[in-house]
C-alpha cells in the first residue's frame, strides 16, 4: 500500500470505530467544524454489545489533547483485533502482511513456514530419546517434524528455519521473498523506460516547457530516429547516468556519428524500442495520477541522484497536492522588529519565526517563534505545534479554538537544505512519530536552497504577515538605514508574548482570508479536504508518553553509559535507574540521546533501534545541594563555557563556572554582542544576491543565457579591445 493510501486509511472518518474509556463507539457523522463527530455508543465498560445505546458528540482534537487513551479502527472486528493486539503484543504483523497485496499462495507458503518452525521449536523440549540413545538436537528436530501431518525432510526444515529467522518470523516479509525479481515490473526494455521517464521528466513535468503528451511522444520518436534506435541503458551506468551524454542525446546538436565513434559512450547505449502511443499515454497517466508511485519507480530504477536532478519539480507537489498534509513546506523568517525583555524592558532582540504550511489548503499548520536563528529546536518546535491540536493555546489567548483547526502528522515536509545537517534528529523524529507503524511517519525532503520554487507559497505568506505586523506594531524596522533601525529600537515596547499573540492572531486571520490560488479561505479548504479524507489521527502523550522527548534535539552520534554515567560536554549524567543496562553480549550498549535546549541538566536515553525511552539521566554536577535538579538552558551552558574560557580554563569545565548571576550578566553582554554581529551579518548585500546554487539553477533552466549574437560580440570585442596601459 502506498504511503498516501496508508495515510488516508488511518484518518478518522464517519463509519470508523472508536474505543474510549472502556466503551466502543461507532462514528456516524461529521459536524460542520470538521473536528467533532457524532458517535453511536455500541458498548459501555466491556459489557456485551447493546446495539444502539444512544449518541454522544466527540471532539477529536480535544480527545488528542486530553489525558485519555483511545483506539481507532475502520471496522468493529479490526477494533477488537487491535484491542487484542494491544493486550498480547506483537501480532500486528499479520495485518500488515495482508495489506501488502501479495499473492495468496505466497502468504500461504509463509504461513506454512511459520507454522512448521514455531511448531517444531515448541515441541523440541518435549523430545525424550529412546533408551540407550543420547540426546541430539537433530534427533529432536526429526521427531518434532514427524508430528506434523505434512512430512518434511530435515533439509526443508532448515531452509524454512533460515527464512524464518532471516525475516524474524514476519509473514509479509517471508511471502515477499518468494516473489520473482521481475514481479510487477514492466516488460518494456530498460532503455525505453529510461527514455520515456527522461522525456516525461524533462518536457512534460517541466515548469516552463509543459509539452503536451502528444508532443512528448513525438519527441520520443524523433529522439529514437536521431539515435538510430539507441538509448542509455541504466544497468550499464555503474557510476550513475552520465548527464553530459544525456544532454548530447537530447540536444541533438551533435551529429550522432560523433557519439557513435566514442567507445566510452557507445558502451552505455543499447537498443530501445518506441512504445505504442497507447502504452505511452497509459504510462503518462500513471505519473499524472500517482506521483508517489512514479517517484518510487524513478528512484528504484535510476537512483536518488538522478531523481533529484531530473524530477524534483517542487511546484508539482504544491499544485498536485490532493489532500491535506500530503505536501507541506517549512521555512523561516526573521521578523523585522525589536522586542524588549520582560525584566528590564531594556534589552532589545529580534525573533525568528519558523512556519509550516500545507500545500493543499494553504493552511498554516504550526509555527515556532524563537529568539535565535533557525536551528533544530526551531523546526522541531514548529513540527510539534503543527502536529497537535491548538485548542488550549487558542483558548488561552481568547481565540475561538474552531478558528484554527489544522493539525496532523505531515506526510511529506519540504525543508530548507540548511537543515539537512540536522537530518539525524529530524529523521529520528519523523520515524518515531509513527509509533511503530501505528501512525504515518514524516518524510523529509531537503530542497536545495536554489529550489525556491515553492517560495511563491510560503514567502508570499511571510511577506503578507510582515506587512501586517509593520502596520500594527511599534518597534518594527520600516527602513534598514541607520535612522530606521534607531527609530525601531526607540519605539520597541512589545514583549515576547505580545508578539507571539500578534502572530497567532494574524495566522488565525490568514486562515479565514480568501486565498486567490484556491478561491476560498485556507480554513474552508482544509475542512473540505478533511471531509474527504477524514480527521488526521495522531498519537497522544498519554498513550505514548516518551514521544515528547523525541521533540527534543537528538545529539549527534550515540553515547554509552560509563562508570560515572553518560559523559556529555564535560558533565556526567547518571541514569535515574541503577538497572539501566550498560552492556550486552557485544559490549557497551549505544544509546541515542535527546536533550532539550531549555534544560541541559537532564538527558533522555533511547535505543538506537528506536522504541520507548530507556531512562532519564541527570547531570550530577548540575544538581542543587538538596539534590534537586537545576534547569540550565543551552544558552546558559554556552555562556558558562565562555566564562570558563575567560578564566583560562577548558570549556568542558563549564559546570564549575555555572554561577547564575555571572551567567546572567555574561548572557546580557554576549546577547548584545551576538545581536550586533547578527545585524552585521544580515546587512543587505549590494547588487545581485550571492547564491551560486540559484545561479546554477537559473542557468540550467535556461532562464538566463547569452544569445548567439551576444557570444559573437563578446568574442569579436575580445580581439578588438585596446589593452594598452
Amino acid at each position: 500500500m502506498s504511503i498516501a493510501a496508508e495515510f488516508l486509511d488511518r484518518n478518522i472518518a464517519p463509519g470508523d470505530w472508536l474505543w474510549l474509556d472502556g466503551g466502543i463507539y461507532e462514528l456516524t457523522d461529521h459536524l460542520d467544524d470538521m473536528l467533532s463527530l457524532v458517535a453511536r455508543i455500541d458498548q459501555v465498560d466491556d459489557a456485551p454489545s447493546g446495539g444502539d445505546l444512544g449518541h454522544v458528540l466527540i471532539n477529536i482534537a480535544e480527545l488528542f489533547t486530553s489525558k485519555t487513551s483511545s483506539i481507532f479502527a475502520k471496522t468493529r472486528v479490526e477494533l477488537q483485533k487491535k484491542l487484542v493486539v494491544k493486550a498480547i503484543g506483537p501480532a500486528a504483523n499479520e495485518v500488515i502482511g495482508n495489506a501488502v497485496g501479495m499473492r495468496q499462495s505466497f502468504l500461504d507458503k509463509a504461513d506454512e513456514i511459520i507454522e512448521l518452525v514455531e511448531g517444531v521449536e515448541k515441541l523440541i523440549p518435549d523430545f525424550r530419546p529412546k533408551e540407550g540413545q543420547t540426546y541430539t538436537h537433530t534427533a529432536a528436530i526429526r521427531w518434532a517434524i514427524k508430528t506434523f501431518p505434512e512430512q518434511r525432510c530435515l533439509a526443508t526444515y532448515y531452509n524454512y528455519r533460515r527464512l524464518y529467522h532471516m525475516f524474524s518470523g514476519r509473514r509479509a516479509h517471508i511471502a515477499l521473498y518468494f516473489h520473482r525479481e521481475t514481479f510487477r515490473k514492466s516488460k518494456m526494455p530498460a532503455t525505453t523506460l529510461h527514455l520515456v521517464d527522461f522525456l516525461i521528466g524533462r518536457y512534460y513535468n517541466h515548469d516552463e516547457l509543459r509539452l503536451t503528451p502528444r508532443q512528448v511522444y513525438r519527441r520520443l520518436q524523433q529522439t529514437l530516429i536521431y539515435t538510430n534506435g539507441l538509448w542509455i541503458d541504466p544497468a550499464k551506468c555503474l557510476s550513475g547516468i552520465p548527464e553530459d551524454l544525456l544532454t548530447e542525446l537530447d540536444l541533438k546538436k551533435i551529429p550522432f556519428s560523433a557519439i557513435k565513434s566514442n567507445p566510452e559512450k557507445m558502451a552505455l547505449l543499447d537498443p530501445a524500442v518506441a512504445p505504442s502511443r497507447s502504452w505511452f499515454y497509459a504510462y503518462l497517466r500513471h505519473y499524472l495520477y500517482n506521483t508517489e508511485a512514479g517517484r518510487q519507480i524513478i528512484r528504484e530504477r535510476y537512483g536518488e541522484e538522478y531523481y533529484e536532478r531530473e524530477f524534483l519539480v517542487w511546484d508539482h507537489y504544491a499544485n498536485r497536492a490532493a489532500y491535506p498534509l500530503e505536501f507541506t513546506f517549512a521555512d523561516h523568517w526573521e521578523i523585522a522588529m525589536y522586542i524588549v525583555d520582560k525584566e528590564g524592558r531594556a534589552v532589545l532582540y529580534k525573533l525568528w519565526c519558523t512556519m509550516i504550511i500545507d500545500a493543499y489548503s494553504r493552511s498554516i499548520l504550526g509555527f515556532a517563534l524563537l529568539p535565535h536563528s533557525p536551528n533544530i529546536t526551531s523546526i522541531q518546535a514548529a513540527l510539534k505545534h503543527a502536529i497537535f491540536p491548538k485548542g488550549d493555546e487558542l483558548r488561552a489567548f481568547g481565540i475561538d479554538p474552531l478558528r484554527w483547526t489544522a493539525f496532523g502528522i505531515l506526510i511529506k515536509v519540504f525543508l530548507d537544505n540548511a537543515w539537512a545537517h540536522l537530518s539525524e534528529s529530524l529523521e529520528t523524529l519523523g520515524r518515531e512519530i509513527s509509533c511503530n507503524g501505528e501512525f504515518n511517519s514524516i518524510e523529509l525532503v531537503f530542497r536545495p536552497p536554489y529550489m525556491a520554487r515553492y517560495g511563491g507559497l510560503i514567502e508570499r505568506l511571510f511577506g503578507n504577515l510582515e506587512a501586517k505586523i509593520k502596520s500594527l506594531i511599534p518597534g518594527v524596522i520600516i527602513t534598514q538605514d541607520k535612522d530606521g533601525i534607531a527609530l525601531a529600537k526607540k519605539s520597541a515596547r512589545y514583549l515576547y508574548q505580545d508578539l507571539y499573540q500578534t502572530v497567532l492572531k494574524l495566522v488565525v486571520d490568514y486562515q479565514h482570508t480568501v486565498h486567490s490560488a484556491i478561491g476560498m479561505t485556507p480554513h474552508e479548504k482544509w475542512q473540505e479536504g478533511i471531509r474527504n479524507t477524514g480527521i488526521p489521527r495522531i498519537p497522544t502523550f498519554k498513550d505514548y508518553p516518551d514521544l515528547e522527548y523525541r521533540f527534543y534535539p537528538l545529539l549527534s552520534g550515540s553515547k554509552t553509559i560509563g562508570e560515572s554515567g553518560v559523559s556529555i560536554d564535560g558533565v556526567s549524567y547518571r541514569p535515574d535507574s541503577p538497572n539501566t543496562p550498560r552492556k550486552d553480549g557485544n559490549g557497551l550498549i549505544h544509546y541515542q540521546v535527546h536533550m532539550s535546549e531549555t534544560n541541559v541538566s537532564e538527558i533522555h536515553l533511547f535505543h538506537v533501534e528506536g522504541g520507548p525511552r530507556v531512562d532519564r539521566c541527570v547531570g550530577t554536577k548540575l544538581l542543587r545541594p538538596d539534590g534537586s535538579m537545576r534547569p540550565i538552558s543551552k544558552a546558559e551552558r554556552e555562556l558558562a563555557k565562555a566564562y570558563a574560557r575567560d578564566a583560562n580554563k577548558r570549556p568542558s569545565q563549564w559546570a564549575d563556572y555555572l554561577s547564575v548571576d555571572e551567567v546572567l550578566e555574561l548572557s546580557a553582554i554576549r546577547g548584545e554582542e551576538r545581536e550586533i554581529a547578527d545585524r552585521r551579518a544580515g546587512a543587505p548585500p549590494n547588487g545581485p544576491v550571492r547564491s551560486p546554487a540559484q545561479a546554477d539553477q537559473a542557468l540550467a533552466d535556461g532562464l538566463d543565457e547569452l544569445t548567439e549574437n551576444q557570444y559573437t560580440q563578446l568574442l569579436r570585442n575580445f580581439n578588438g579591445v585596446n589593452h594598452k596601459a
Partner: protein
Amino acid sequence: MPDIVLPPEFVTAHPGPAKIVFPSTEVISPHLDIPARLQSYHYAWDRWKVANQELMTILVTLDPNIAYDRQFAQTIEIQRQRLEMKLQSCPIEVNAAAIDAAGGYMALRDPVRAQCAALTKQEKIDWLLTFRCIITPELSEFFTKVGTLVGYSQDGPSLLSQGRNLLLGGLTGTGKTTAMNLLAALNERVQKVLLLDVRGIPREYSFFLQSVLSIESPVLTSTSKPLWQRMLVELNWRYSSKTSEEELQQILCTLFTVSGVSLLMLDEVSHIQAHRYRRKVLSFSNRKPKLPIICSSCEPEKWTAGDAELAGRWNDSFTFQPYRGERLSQLLTYFELLSPLPQDSGLALFEVRGKSGLVRGPAAYVEEWTHGTMKNITILIAGAMIMAIEQNSPRITVELLQRAWESIQAKPNQTFLDLLQSWR
C-alpha cells in the same frame, strides 16, 4: 672547463644575430581539427616525457658540492622549464575576421562541440592543454611590440639601429613571466661543439644559441655578480667564483655575440634596488648598445624612478592588465568556445536572472576569486572543466567553479601542467 676558450671553428661557424621567433598560431575556423591537434598534443607529451626523463637522469648524477655541477643543474632546470613551454606549440587564435568568415559564434562552437562528443574522458582532459597557452590580443600586441624593438636594432648600421628598451608591468599572474619564458623557449637552439676540458681532453658541449635571453633578476645585496652569473648559466656557460664582475661582463659580451642574443629580458627587476646595481645594468646596456633590454616587474616605473638616465633609456612601457568586467567576459567566452563540454555554461555572465531576482553569475565569482589574473583564471576554468568531465556534467556550474577554486587554494603552487598531469 677554462673560463672561456672558444675553438676557432665555432667562432667562424656561429650564426650571428638571429631573428626572433614568435609563437605561430592557428586561426580558429569551423574546420578546426581537434583529433589532429590532440595527436600533436600526445606526441608533444611523449616527447616532453622522454626529454624530461633524460634531463632528470643527468640531474641525479650531479654532485651538489661541486660548483660546476651546481651550475649545470641550474641549466638543466632552465631547460626543463623551456620544455614545458614548448608543449603546446601552436595556440589557437581567435580574431574578428575568422568570426565573421565563419558566420558567428555558433558556427565555430558547434563543430568543436561535435568533435568533442567523440572524445573519451581522457582525451577531453588532454584537450584542455589548448588553454595552456592562450595568445590573447594583449599578448599578441606585446609580441608585436617586441618584434618592433628587435627590428630597430637589427636594421644594420643606420641611425635607427639602436637598442630600445622596454618596461613590462602587470600584476602577479597576469602573464609577464609566461610571455618572457615562452619567447625564450621558442628562441632556443642548441649546437653541439667539441671543447677541451681542464685536462685538455676534448668533450662534446651543448652550446646554446639563444636569440632571446630571459632571466629572473637575483636580489643583489653586496655584489652584482649573481646577475651576470645567471646570464651565463642561462647560456649553459660555466664560471668560476673568482672571476671578477668586469670579467663576467666581458665574457657575456662575447657570448651574446656568438650566441646571437637579440633580446635580453630581466624579470623581477625590482630585485635590483640599490642605485649602484641599477647603474650596472645601465652600464651593460652601454656595452651592448644595440641589444634591447626588457625589464619586467609589477611596478617597473619604480625601478627607473630617481635616475633620469635610466628613465630616459627605459622610456617605453607595456602593461598586462588584469581581466575584469567586460574583458573577463570576453576571455571566458574564449574558454566557452573551445570547451569540450556539450552545453554552454554562461561563464561570461556577471548577473543571472533567477526566479527570485538577480543573482551573481559565474563571471562575478571568477572575478572575485582570481582578481582577474590570467594564471588563476586559466587554472580555475581548467580545474572546473576537469571536474565536469569527471562527473559527466554537461556544463560548468558555479558549484564546480567553487570546488575547483577550493582545490586551487589547497595547492597554491600547482601549475596548469601539474593539474593536467595529475589526470594523466
